[in-house]
């Protein structure tokens, strides 16, 4: 599925949900379902800094695609991280860099991606793009 299609899928999932409590409950379930990150990556080097809820992110290249894993100590943040991972994982660096991330706004969780929320998600998305840039450069060589 394309990044666009996955976002569309998520938007449809959320369309069936009621107000904030149902959405949060869904995020919490997503957070719980996301497997804990490999302890090898639950380390400071993989930590996204500058936020209250800590987010760890790892990226591996498998073939020409990047596979992301993530974790967080806060469960709602983790649920959001799970969504972001689901959108980006298993795509090529070029696809990731070209993607237009708008589903979070459309599912009514915009405030969680405001740069002023110290939940680390903005930094996580930035980090995902950095990984994509780095792997793209690597693949060229």
């Amino acid at each position, binding site marked *: 599925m394309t990044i666009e299609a996955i976002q569309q899928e998520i938007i449809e999932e959320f369309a069936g949900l009621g107000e904030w*409590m149902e959405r*949060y409950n869904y995020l919490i379930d997503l957070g719980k379902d996301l497997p804990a990150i490999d302890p090898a990556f639950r380390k400071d080097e993989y930590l996204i800094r500058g936020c*209250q*809820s800590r987010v760890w992110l790892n990226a591996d290249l498998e073939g020409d695609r990047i596979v992301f894993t993530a974790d967080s100590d*806060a*469960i*709602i*943040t983790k649920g959001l991280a799970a969504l972001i991972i689901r959108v980006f994982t298993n795509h090529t660096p070029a696809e990731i860099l070209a993607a237009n991330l708008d589903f979070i706004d459309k599912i009514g969780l915009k405030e969680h991606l405001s740069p002023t929320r110290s939940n680390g998600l903005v930094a996580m998305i930035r980090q995902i793009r950095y990984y994509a840039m780095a792997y793209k450069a690597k693949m060229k060589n």
Partner: protein
Amino acid sequence: MEIFPVERIREDFPILKQHVYGKPLVYFDNGATTQKPVRVIETINRIHREQNASIHRSVNWMSDHMTQLYEDARKTIRAFIGAGKISEIIFTAGATASINAVAFSFGETFLEPGDEVLISTMEHHSNIVPWQLACERRGARLKVIPITDAGTIEMDAYRNLLGDKTRIVAVTHVSNTLGTINPVKEMIRLAHERDIPVLVDGAQAIQHTAVNMVDLDCDFYVFSGHKVYGPTGIGILYGKEQWLERLPPYQGGGDMIDRVTFEKTTFNELPFKFEAGTSNYIGAIGMAEAVAYISEIGMQAIHEYETGLRDYAAGLLSAFPGLSQYGTAPDKTAIFSFVLNNVHPFDTGMILDKFGIAVRTGTHCTMPLMNRFRIEGTVRASLCFYNTHQEIDRLMEGLQTVTDMLA
């Protein structure tokens, strides 16, 4: 005791009528900043519309008049904190700026290699980092008074730490994370027995309890306007005249000088020596108005009402299953730091937010205190005299939902 007219008082604070996500705002983030009564808002408004002119060194009527208001503001603050002299009241940009001024100027003059600065485990970063920087510059050492599990100063340890090398004690009057009211008067007495001066960080005390500089006998006392129902960008450094006179100025600029030549500059007298540049005179007047407002309500009445709120909230929080409180000193303000079992404070905060309840989560600029309790952060609800028992009930409902959703 008269009944505290909280509903009438709430009318004085326009912002308390706001709704967040369609829910009436419950503002429990008073430890971070307080809301402004209409008197303060209108004072600032009126100055901007009718009176603004630069203060000091002027011949024109408007400037005379502004200067008068500014110097009257200084008198209001003096009276409010029971300081001996007008010249002991210095307007700064805030509590942090005040502490930096003392840490720098005191450090330059009185700190030598091997000397010690004594602070407590529960200090706000603003009362840690300036001293770290001063110690680093001067080769001095920072010593830390331990605290008990309840979040009170270990007084025996304090006595033992006061030593021949201690040059100054810097301690918070009230902990911004725990609410603990420290026995500063006794701590000052003990330090003075050894001729050690004491700086008291009053940022979380001044808005909740009557203070008196002469009675307290502290050498420096600092606080911020925005936490005492006044505007941002203004604060107070109180210092005993004999100390302020011995300290070199902190910043250079307009107003703080007597004569400038390129070879040598002589400095103005107190308090101006420590007020470099155009001061935030509108902020100062706004802060004085805030202080006049709470003085009219009465610090005693505020204290009693807030104690009632505190006891009510403490009772409910203690009874809440799976909730751990940090800061359980008997003598404390209505600040509550807590964590729900297995729930990250940030998750708690996000859900409370949806109920229109504004709390703060995280380390509250007291990371060393978090380390002491081996936690990453807490949820903090900090109340003041415009909060109500009903609002506490709403917090409890919110916490119940958090538990239902997450625990």
